[in-house]
């Protein structure tokens, strides 16, 4: 039971922070299928900086966790500039731009990883080894039955994500910037009429989504995969998109969707393990989160409504 909660949370929270990024972008009216590329590129920059600094100074890569976290956020944000420029300045189709960015991120990071490994470390490797970040347990709280598992074996990034998520919630729903951002996705012309630059709002929204996706990506790299390689492109970004659509473009329901994913995933793995079935049966239990989502969507998506101006190129002169 405890492992379901522990593993579920460590999967759900990085997903959640990526989904929040997606909400920011989509609420401002920019369709964002590029989350997958952002998280991969962010994780790449984070891992690269950790590996390089460790190589230059000789420190243990474990101690550089927070440094790489920071660089991953910067990296994700830098890469998201492409999506912002393409879909806001160049008026490209946002869906297409997103897909192209995913393809480019995979190609670029795979190429650069092998190239840098060969040049700097003289090794023929297609990954940066990171290891798993250290975990901590809050004594006392961890002894509470059931809920105690939430405080057991926590990755430090989970705390960071919760803090950032709370801040993101506040920014989106309680500030002037957040209100304008949400209005840009519903009725950009009224925002413009109020004297606010729609393009600027949207640009910053996309950058925020890149930043948060980069954070999500490096968290996966430091936990599940323990390294950076092209395996980071497992479809986490798409899963985050599914979660945010499932959550009807609102932060709290999206958290619920992400937790559902996380617990269904770890629950499935737990059932398969405890029933001592052959390993190929785990595949059958792996579909649990996806089937559950589809079934729930059948009941809940009637009321689902995307932001009104989502995916539309903002044209000032249009009536």
């Amino acid at each position, binding site marked *: 039971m405890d492992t379901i909660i522990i593993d579920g949370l460590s999967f759900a929270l990085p997903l959640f922070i990526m989904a929040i990024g997606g909400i920011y972008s989509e609420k401002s009216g920019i369709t964002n299928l590029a989350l997958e590329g952002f998280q991969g590129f962010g994780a790449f920059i984070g891992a690269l900086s950790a590996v390089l600094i460790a190589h230059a100074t000789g420190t243990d890569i474990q101690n550089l966790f927070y440094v790489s976290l920071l660089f991953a956020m910067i990296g994700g944000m830098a890469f998201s500039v492409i999506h912002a420029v393409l879909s806001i300045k160049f008026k490209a189709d946002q869906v297409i731009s997103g897909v192209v960015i995913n393809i480019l991120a995979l190609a670029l990071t795979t190429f650069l990883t092998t190239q840098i490994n060969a040049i700097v470390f003289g090794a023929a490797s297609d990954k940066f080894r990171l290891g798993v970040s250290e975990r901590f347990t809050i004594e006392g709280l961890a002894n509470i039955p059931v809920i105690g598992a939430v405080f057991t074996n926590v990755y430090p990034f989970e705390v960071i994500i919760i803090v950032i998520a709370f801040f993101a919630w506040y920014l989106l729903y309680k500030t002037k910037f957040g209100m304008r951002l949400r209005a840009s996705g519903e009725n950009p012309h009224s925002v413009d009429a109020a004297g606010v630059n729609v393009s600027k709002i949207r640009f910053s929204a996309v950058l925020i989504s890149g930043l948060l996706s980069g954070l999500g990506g490096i968290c996966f790299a430091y936990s599940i995969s323990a390294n950076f390689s092209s395996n980071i492109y497992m479809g986490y970004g798409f899963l985050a998109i599914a979660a945010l659509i499932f959550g009807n473009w609102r932060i709290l329901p999206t958290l619920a969707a992400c937790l559902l994913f996380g617990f269904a995933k770890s629950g499935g793995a737990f059932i398969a393990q405890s029933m001592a079935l052959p390993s190929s049966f785990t595949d059958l239990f792996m579909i649990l989160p996806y089937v559950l989502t589809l079934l729930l969507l059948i009941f809940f998506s009637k009321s689902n409504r*995307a932001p009104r101006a989502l995916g539309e190129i903002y044209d000032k002169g249009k009536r």
Partner: protein
Amino acid sequence: MSKDKKIKSLRYNLIRPMSNEKWQPISIPIVSILISFIAAAIVILLIGKNPLQAFYNLFQGAGILPKPSYAGYKSMLTDFLSLLNAMTPLVFASLAVAVAFKAGLFNIGVSGQMLVSGFLATIVVGYSGLDAIIAKPLVLVIGMVAGGLMGGLVGWLKYKFNINEVVSTIMLNYIAQYVISFFIQMYYIDPVSRQSKYISEAARLTLVNVEIANLKMDIPLGFILAIIIAILLKFVMDKTVVGFEIKAVGSNRNAAKYAGINVGRNTVLAMVISGGLAGLAGVTYYLGYFSSIQPKVLSSIGFDSIAVSLLGNSHPIGVIFSSFLISIIDQGSTYMSSQAGIRQEISSVIIGLILLFSACGAYLKHKVSRLKEKEVDQKESES
């Protein structure tokens, strides 16, 4: 001539070929391809290699240009045929994306639809020992039906329950991937290759190692079908009621509804066609290009095809050309990396760049028309 004027005339000469609106669907992709090759050349220069030689090797490897020497039973023709072999599933997959696109739908699930149809065709026909004359058409039919049903399911979920097709296709991709991996590992695994058991030659859509005129070549039968279907699709989309209705739904759902077009039916229909094409991509991939299925892996073709279809303007004939280009870069990369000493991964970077620049096509178009307007204004003010 002042510097300012020089720049102006240079700009004019660069832009003029693109200013004819009739040719823009062709000229803009070509310009994007040129820009991306220049960008790729800069990348290759930075690594310290000769870009021209690299590109030349790329075309040699793909069988477009002759190599200096060939191994026994090989020639430029065999290379070219294996290029077509690799290209066939990509053409089908891109057509699948293009059809859905025309209906305003976004089929991310091509990989999943490919896997399901490829798997069903493999277990029903691939292991059956049927004669080639029955087996090959049966493979195609199973592929089309399985893919079509899966696509139709997505369309139906969208129309009936308002489930966004992006989400449902992503979910179905994962479900297909895990369920099929389970069945392969339980019942059809080949212990040596760790993949599904190889299918019978009779069921395979590519004739392998056919000896003609002292050459051993792979003949992709599916390629001919891909060309026929692309032309057929162009006809259906441009000349028939079905095509018109699908395009009407795609460009404005509400307007189509008020015009008396059944939006739900056309949504499902477009997804059935799209899924059917994805199914054909699946069988030409798993029972043509390959002859077995690797468990737990979705082919990247499903995602590449989205971009390839964009590069071809979602136009059936354009898609053939864009798949051709992308396949050349993909296929030639092995030879390029062995000859020029450049990492093979650069080929996907080049592809990424081409797609990136072609995504800017709308901006180029906008810029060109702006410059034209300016020119007209200037002439008017001068006169």
